[in-house]
């Protein structure tokens, strides 16, 4: 059993996000922290408000796309950044809670906004040891 973690990986023009965890949902939650890390240091984002997100999609990879796209939509329309996530599986998809706060330019110093999650480098899979990985490249 691995501990859950997230990381960014390199792409010539944009940037890749990756989450790893013991369950698919944990890998998705870690990848969401990586998404925030593209914009700012997730440690700087205080988990003060919660937003609930539900995504329905059978295919794991398309579900991951839907999850990231829903988060981007919430970030954009609410002007928020998120740093803590809890995801549970539901019939045909997932239900998530995302904690964060409104963007504070002085404190967060956001480097760049993420335009979209892309199908490039998209992978959601479980390895032989039972660890889940979820990743893709995001367009900035």
């Amino acid at each position, binding site marked *: 059993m691995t501990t859950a973690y997230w990381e*960014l990986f*390199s*792409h*010539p*023009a*944009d*940037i890749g996000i990756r989450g790893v965890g013991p369950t698919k949902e944990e890998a998705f939650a870690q990848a969401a922290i990586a998404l925030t890390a593209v*914009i700012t240091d997730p440690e700087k984002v205080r988990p003060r408000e919660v937003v609930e997100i539900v995504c329905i999609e059978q295919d794991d990879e*398309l579900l991951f*796309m839907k999850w990231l*796209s829903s988060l*981007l*939509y919430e970030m*954009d*329309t609410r*002007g928020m950044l998120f740093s803590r996530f809890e995801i549970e599986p539901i019939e045909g998809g997932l239900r998530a809670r995302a904690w964060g706060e*409104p*963007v504070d*330019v002085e404190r*967060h*110093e*956001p*480097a*760049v*906004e993420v*335009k*979209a*999650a*892309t*199908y*490039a480098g*998209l992978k959601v899979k479980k390895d032989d040891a039972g660890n889940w990985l979820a990743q893709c*490249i995001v*367009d*900035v």
Partner: protein
Amino acid sequence: MFAQKLQKQAEAQWRIEPFDRMHVPVVVFADEELIREMDEQVYLQAANVAALPGIVKASYAMADAHWGYGFPIGGVAAFDPDAGGIISAGGVGFDISCGVRALRTGLTYDQIQGNEKELADVLARRIPAGVGSEGKVRLSSLEMDDMLMGGALWAVEQGYGTRTDLKYTEENGRMLGAEPRYVSDHAKQRQEKEVGTLGSGNHYLEVQRVTAVYDEAIGKAFGLALNDVTVMIHCGSRGLGHQIATDYAPRMIKAASEHGLELADRELACAPIKSDVGRQYYGAMCAGINCALANRQVLTHLTREAFAKLFPRAELTLLYDVSHNTCKVEEHEIDGKRKKLYVHRKGATRAFGPGHPSLPEDLKPVGQPVLIGGTMGTASYILTGTEEGMDLAFGSCCHGAGRAMSRSAATKRWHGKDIVMHLAQKGIVIKGSSMRGIAEEAPGAYKDVSVVVDATEKAGLARKVARLEPLVCVKG
């Protein structure tokens, strides 16, 4: 493997003959230096595009081409609706109608010299830029649809600019064919606070100085002379465009499979032009183009206000506005016959030659102004379209420098503060809210824009008119 298949065809023009599933060749416009440095992925992606149904003539890669999603960035491809041709969200990109507009200011360098910092401050205060910034224009849902139908014309009707501005904007500022009903509520909601915002990443507003005029006659026709001060605005369709791309990609992946199209890469997401999804995407994308045109028009107004504060005698007139992420229906000559084609330009600029009917009368003798943005430390260029280019690549050319280094590599190599200081020594004032953002956009992370522009000229796609160097840069 692809690089070995490249054959030199002409000056700055290379070709990969069709093989396997390719219907047409790949044509790359670049000099030896750019070819040596070009990512193998560019050829692979251009070859994947060459295998899409209904593609006409060739799959093109411009001198600044780099690895994109599905289509290479710097890719041009035209599809024939009567030959099963497709339309692709991946062929347009996530930032629909991202583009550049250039304004003359009526000022010369000596008139603003010494006031650059003040000008930078005023611009930075007026222009909403960066993550989380909000525009001053708020739209109800009815107004949103009006904006998506009207583009820059809508913005002018609201008081943001003049009718003359429209004349010097592609499509006269308004893309016909927009169908706001095919734009999702999510996309519209993302735009509610983002009309008249610059965005982030490689988007910017720059005050520049003309440091070279290569063609006096055309420079005169464009109203450009040595030491003139100009403004360049680089941005796109903001959240609305991003959401349209996000919404249609999965629909197109599904449609492609229903129509028996095998995609080498899911980012090639496409649907037949003559299908419901294809038609709906086209209507939504045209609305996205209008959103970008309206956005750049509102930003133009804000820029005029900022200049008026410091330089009451300044008169900001629009030189031209180009979009470099689009799919447009255009007539081109194929085997001696005029055909209506769906021309995708992804990170590529339309560059129509002299005499083209879509150009305003005063530009018809010289061709369309082509605006090539550089980085905050280097130069930008203004070129003009050529007659030759119409035949070479459907009247298209490069769009910028093109990245040479990843964002993470750039932040490892440079610090934002050092870049700001280094550029200050060169007399360039940078305004940006994030030092990391500035490091990610370091001039050294890009290809040399001069090399890209020279290769474009050598290939005959466009001709150099003027070089512009930055004085003030407001980073998105």
